[in-house]
């Protein structure tokens, strides 16, 4: 028995802090309309087209990249937690499922239960 929620994915801790919100899996620009304020942006990688999503996101999780990647640099600019280089995040996380992103530890955990 443990109080710790299960770790769903891990990656490079790239922008410090913790935030929770529903995971929003984004495959391309064509998905952007689904993004809502407070969502956790989950994607493979980001480029300039993705920057506006950071304004809405509670946190960011990308499958590729490291501390120096675009997603990491932009997340730090917006002061939102980021975990990058989180392999298989797109398959390990379910769209809409509440998750907690720890950008200091580099973990994404289930956020079911108390907020």
């Amino acid at each position: 028995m443990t109080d710790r929620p299960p770790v769903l994915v891990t990656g490079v801790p790239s922008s410090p802090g913790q935030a929770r919100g529903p995971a929003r899996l984004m495959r391309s620009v064509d998905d952007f309309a689904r993004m809502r304020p407070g969502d956790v942006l989950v994607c493979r990688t980001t480029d300039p087209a993705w920057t506006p999503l950071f304004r809405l996101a509670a946190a960011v999780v990308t499958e590729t990249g490291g501390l120096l990647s675009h997603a990491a640099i932009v997340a730090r600019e917006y002061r939102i937690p980021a975990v990058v280089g989180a392999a298989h995040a797109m398959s390990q996380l379910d769209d809409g499922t509440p998750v907690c992103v720890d950008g200091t530890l580099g973990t994404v955990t289930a956020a079911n239960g108390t907020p």
Partner: protein
Amino acid sequence: MPHASPTDLLVLHAVRLKGFADTDAVAARFGLDVEQTREDLLDAQAYGWVTRASFAGLTGWSLAEAGRRHGETRLQEELDRVGARDTVTAVHEEFLPVNSQATQAFTSWQLGSMNTATPPVTGDVFGQLTQLAAQLRPLEDRLVAHLARFGGYHRRFAWALAQASDDPVWITGTEVDSCHRVWFELHEDLIATLNITR
């Protein structure tokens, strides 16, 4: 004589480089006429190449996947027609190690300034960014010798760097044409032009 890209390609490419921008900003990217740009954007929207969307109180254009593919095809055709593929490939190869220095400098700056409300611009980051500007210039010159649309990166980077001494938001800020934004845009431009992945 450098090749001048056709206006409709510049409009599409501006949307890719800016990522998300209103009509005025798309036109301004390559100094195009705003009304003509609006027409080209509406045409591109009809083809499904660009979409108009609203995010967080902003409304702008962004490139749809179909537009991204169409743009890449057009850029490939242009690159081969002008005979610039070897030059752009070589510049990209030389850009990559400089890009590592740049992203390292931006990251060090951010990590070093995260706990301070108004971080001072240190001589260290200024020195690094000044060096990057110096390395950027000859790379840009070689690109512009073939394709005029590559012009302006060094000027914008140097301008942002000059502003940074008064306001450090010009180093990595996303709301201004900061050093990082200019740098990242050039990287995206090279990637788009060569049709490669990051």
